[in-house]
Structures are given as C-alpha cells and as structure tokens.
C-alpha cells in the first residue's frame, strides 16, 4: 500500500513556488512500476473518490448547480404568482442590452476595478517592504496595517459613512486645515465612486500585504548580500530581483483583487445604495437590486451570467497568459 500511503502523506500546504517540484514528485511516485494487482488499484480509485466526495458535494451543491441553473434560468421568464416561467429565448439578453443602468453598472465596475486593483497592489507591496525592514515597532506597524482586514465591511462602511459626512466628517475636518471648503462627498455624482474606491483600497491593502510579507520572508538573504557585494543599488535590487521573485504572489493577489472588485458590495449597500442616480451601482449590487428588490429573478440570472462569464474569462486569461511569464524557482 505504498502508493496510497505516499499520496496521503504528500504535503498539501506547500507554497506555490514549490508546487512544480512536488507535482513532479507525485507523478514519479504514481508511475513507479508497481506489483499491485487490479483489485488494489480499484480500491485506490474508490478511496480517492471517497476522499474527494465531501468537497465535491459541496462544490456541486453551492457552486456548479447554481451556476448551471442560473444559465438555464436566463432563458426563461420570471415566474410571478400563478404565472409559471416560460421559455423566452434571448429576450432577457435583449432587455439587458437595452438597459442603460446595466451599462452604467458595468462601466462603474470597470472604473472601480481598474483603480482599486493597481492602487491596492502597489500599496500592499509598499507596506510589506516597509514592515519587512528592521525598524522599531515593526509588529505594531504590521498589526496597524492588517487591522482594516479583520473588521467586518458593514461596520467599516458605517464608520466611513460618518467620515464622509459634509462639514463635521473626518474627511472635511482634515481638509479644512488646508482651507478646502466642505464637500458633500457621497452626495455628489462626481465624487461618490471615488469615495467607495478609497474604502476598498484601505480595506484590502492590508490583507494583500500579508501575502507579500510572507513571500519576502521566504526570500533567501544570500540574494541581497550578493547584490550588495556586487554594488547593486536598492532600487535596482528590488526591480531586478525582489519584484520578479514576488511575481507568483502578485498573480495570486491580482486574481483575488479582481474577484474582490466584482464580489464585495457591502459598503455600497450601507453607504450609497448605488446612488446618487446609479453613479455607484456596481454589477453585483445591480444584480442584488434586480433579484431581491424587483423580484425579477430571470433578469437577475441574465446579469449573473454576464458576471460569471467576465470572471471566468479573466481568471482563464490570467492562468494561461500570465502564468507562462512568471518565473518559478
């Protein structure tokens, strides 16, 4: 039973960088010429599937089935009371293309994603490098940077709501020191989305910092010593050594940041409810509104299909194109 034993002992929690090596190891173990009979191999398969079963059941029930049901539902009308759902073909998609709020939500979401993602990543990297250095009060700084992550978004949003209140809110109080007049931050169509972007960056940067910090601490000190001997500047070392070595982490962070920018809408529900006049409505918030306020479940399903396709396309392109260009040890 060496095969099974080895498979079970194979550590599952290894870091991304070691993955190719350990995967090769698994292949080597599995293809080792064996003298086990057909019956034992059969048992191995059954055992394997049984081990996968709990996870598979959860995945199918809560991820795959809903996704497929959503896709099917988008071709039917919304059942109302005594009227059952009927097949309507592409009607829902037609309505979606004609819906200006859908386009606005999509546009808002793209602006939101393209500004939160780079800002969060740069800030996370900057904070990680800062607290990786040897300085006094390092643990305190790490804790401070990480705190926003552990607070629940609903609570955070309620606090930020008051930060942004015109006149006596924190934002206006700080700006008034520089002579900037009070501004209705969340009530102005031009500034509302920016305010939400700031909250998202503040909330996520600390979380991603932890991943960068972990990666930095795994980096061998020999590299920096060698670079110092060769006379490389710190910036040169960061650009040519640290940053490339952090690429796997950056990929991981990037994927999470993109998912977050489409997934997290709690602060919108608390702070603006998509207003003023839909300027802060993101795709998922609009889906919530259509599904659970308008009870137009078929139309909500149609919008969800768009969101799923968008996310799937982005995840695939990242794994296919970016993954090739990332240097693993």
């Amino acid at each position: 039973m060496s095969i099974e034993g080895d498979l079970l002992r194979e550590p599952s929690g290894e870091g991304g960088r070691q993955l190719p090596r350990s995967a090769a190891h698994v292949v080597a173990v599995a293809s080792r010429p064996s003298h086990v009979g057909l019956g034992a191999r059969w048992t191995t398969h059954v055992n394997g599937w049984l081990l996968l079963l709990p996870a598979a059941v959860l995945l199918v029930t809560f991820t795959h089935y809903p996704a497929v049901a959503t896709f099917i539902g988008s071709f039917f009308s919304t059942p109302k009371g005594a009227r059952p759902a009927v097949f309507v073909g592409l009607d829902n998609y037609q309505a979606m293309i004609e819906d200006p709020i859908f386009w606005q939500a999509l546009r808002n979401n793209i602006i939101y994603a393209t500004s939160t993602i780079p800002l969060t990543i740069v800030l996370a990297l900057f904070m990680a490098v800062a607290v990786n250095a040897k300085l006094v009060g390092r643990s305190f700084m790490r804790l401070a940077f990480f705190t926003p992550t552990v607070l629940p978004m609903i609570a955070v949003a309620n606090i930020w709501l008051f930060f942004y209140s015109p006149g006596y809110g924190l934002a206006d109080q700080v700006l008034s020191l520089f002579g900037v007049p009070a501004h209705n931050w969340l009530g102005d169509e031009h500034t509302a989305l920016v305010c939400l972007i700031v909250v998202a960056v503040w909330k996520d940067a600390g979380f991603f910092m932890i991943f960068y910090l972990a990666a930095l601490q795994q980096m061998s000190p020999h590299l920096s010593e060698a670079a110092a001997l060769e006379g490389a500047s710190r910036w040169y070392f960061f650009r040519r050594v640290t940053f490339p070595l952090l690429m796997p982490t950056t990929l991981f962070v990037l994927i999470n940041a993109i998912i977050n920018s489409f997934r997290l809408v709690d602060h919108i529900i608390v702070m603006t409810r998509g207003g003023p006049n839909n300027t802060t409505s993101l795709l998922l918030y609009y889906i919530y509104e259509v599904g659970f306020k308008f009870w137009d479940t078929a139309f909500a399903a149609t919008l969800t299909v768009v969101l799923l396709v968008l996310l799937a396309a982005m995840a695939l392109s990242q794994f296919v194109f970016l993954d090739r260009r990332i240097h693993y040890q």
Partner: protein
Amino acid sequence: MKWLALLVGGAVLALASPAVAADVELSFYYPVAVGGPITKIIDGYAADFEKENPGIKIKAIYAGTYQDTLVKALTALKSGEPPDIAVLLSTDMFTLIDEDAVTPFDPLLTSDADKAWAKSFYPAFMENSQTGGKTWGIPFQRSTIVMYWNKDAFKAAGLNPDKAPDNWDELVAYGQKLTKRDGSNVSQWGVEIPSTGFPYWLFQGLTTANSVRLMNDAGTETYFDKPAVIEALRYWVDLSRKEKIQPTGTIEWGTTPKDFFERKTAIMWTTTGNLTNVKTNAPFPFGVAMLPAHNGRGSPTGGGNFYLFKKMTADKSAAAIKFIKWMTMPERAADWGIKTGYIAVRPDAWETPAMKQYVTDFPAAAVARDQLKYAVAELSTHDNQRVTKALNDGLQAALNGTKTPDQAMKDAQQEAARILRSYK
C-alpha cells in the same frame, strides 16, 4: 438501562403529543434585528397574548430590515413554507398580491364586531392597505414625515423659537436667516430634506403640499411629469442651488439626525419614528411641526402593516385574526405608540388615559396625529420597487444638477410607464 429510559421517555412524549397537536402555532415574521429593545416589546406582547389565549402559540421570527423580511418571507413562500403572519411595508401590497403571497382580510371578517374593527383605523393608513375593494393589510407600525427645528438656532437668528415655518415661502425666508456662512464655508444650513434610500417618500411631502398625487389607487399609473410635480421638484432643487439654504447633492438619510444634533442644520425633515431618538439625543430644545403647506398641506404615510399569508388552515386563520385584533386594541396601540414613537393607528387609542397623559407631557407626540387628516398614501404601484427606483434616480439626478427637474421627471414618467404597461 439507558435504552429503557429512552423508551419510557418516548412513550411519555407519545402520550403527551395529542395535547400539543391541539395547539395552533402561528409563525410571525417581524422586521427588526434580533436583540434590540423592540424585540423585547414584541416578545412581551406575544407572551401576554398566549397567556390570555391558551391553545395559540406565537412563534416570532425577527428577520432584520423590512427589505430582509420581505426577501425571507417570499423565499420561504417559494420553498413552500410561507409564514402565517408578517409585518411588511404597506407599499409592498401590490408586490405581495402579484406574487400571490397574501390573502385579503375581508372573507375572514364575518361578525359585525370584526367588520367594525376593520373600519376603526385612520383612513389615511387604510389607503395603502386596500385596493380593488379588498383589505390586504392592517396598519400596525405607521409613521409620517414631520419637521424638526432647533429652537436655539431660531433664537440666535432672531426668529420666534416657538413658531415653525408654515409654508414654502416662510421655509425659504427662515432658511436664509438660519444659514450661517463664513467665506465659502457654511457652518449651519437652514434646512435638510434627505434624499438617499427613499427620496420619493420625502418628495411626496412636497408634492402633497402642492396638491398633486403621484399614482392612481389601482397602482397602474403614475403622474411624475405633471406640472405640479415638476414644480415641487424645482422648489426642492432651488433650496440648494438658488436659495443656497440646503447642501447641494444628495443628503444622506442616515446622517441627517446627526447633522441636526451637531447643529449643521437648523431644520430637518424626517420620520416621526425618529421622535424618541431626537428627544434623547438633541442637546438643545427642539420643536416638531407639520410639513409646510403650499397649495395644500400634507405628508405621505409610511411604515408597516400586518399581512396574512396564503395556504393557512381555517383554525390558523381564525387564530391569526384573533392575534392581529389583539395587537391593534386601543390600549395596545397606545402602548406601542408611546414606547416606539410610531403613530397609534386608531383614533380611540388617543382617548386612552395612558396616551392622554403622554400627550400632555410631550405635546410634540400629537403633531403627527394631527397631520394625519392631510396625509396621503405612500407611493405604491405594481412592480413597486422598480417604479420607485425610476423616480428616485430622477430626483437624485435633478438634485445633483445632471438633469433639469423637467427632464428628470419626464424621463422618470417614461420609464415608469414602460414598467407598468403590462399591468393595465
């Protein structure tokens, strides 16, 4: 020996169960977060009711906000386990009818006493509870919009601290005196009419004063582009952009009371449901008044009704009627109003000794009641949330200056007509 104990226990349970089965259990969805003071009041009522009516059990389920409660009730309905009774927004009446979720009260009210009970509420509250000649909701926690003013600020501005602006022109004139500027900064605004979340509701405080209605009783037509509606919106926008006595852009509903306490605004419009909050937190003497008049006077009603869900057995629906009647008795309506700040829903509740005493001690409590004779139904149509969103978007666009009031209301009307075309 353990199995023996289990066996005996099982037998005892089996013997006892017929008595349990005779009890009627009513599930009751109520829109409040678990654990607050309101929960305790409701739990107390349910316990008292059970004591007086053996054989009926009330299972209160605290479901969060109105929106959460509606979502939970309709989801439960779709999975075949609807609640028996629920308190939901009066404006969700058409949604609940269209979802085939609720049943009208009329067929269940057989005796003369029952019929008299259904007529005992303020007519203003029944407007959002009846359609097509049937009663679908019984008023329970209802409110209107009132105007709160800071008496200190009035005194400082040289105004009579005991007299609120009584009409639109006075509101502007007072507001100009109350707005305090230093340079480009405003340290105190004249008035704030909040415009997030449900701006249409506060807007109805303006349209009603301009003697115009926003929809028909059947909930199939809206009148957003009528000249009087546009005029009301222009007045609202002008408070900010022309008279400059109100902040520009949308004003957050949730922080408006805080603005009032912080003296950032001298006058605010908000629900009567905030009365207890203001009474506790305002660090200055304040007054409560009806909304200012223009061509007429008035405010929309708001708040929640009792609904009966379908698929109830006959003994359950009889028990449900009994419970709702008990909850809306004059003494209880008075007690509920005093404890929460909601308006007691029937005139005879205001004649009870407890309520009379309360009004003597705190006359502001009676303002909302007196305003009821001018009150109208809150905007409610078929596909309600979508129609109100069309109006809300238009209002926010106008307040932000991205559309003129005229254009905003014409667009909103066009969108509402498109949504409602299938309900004619």
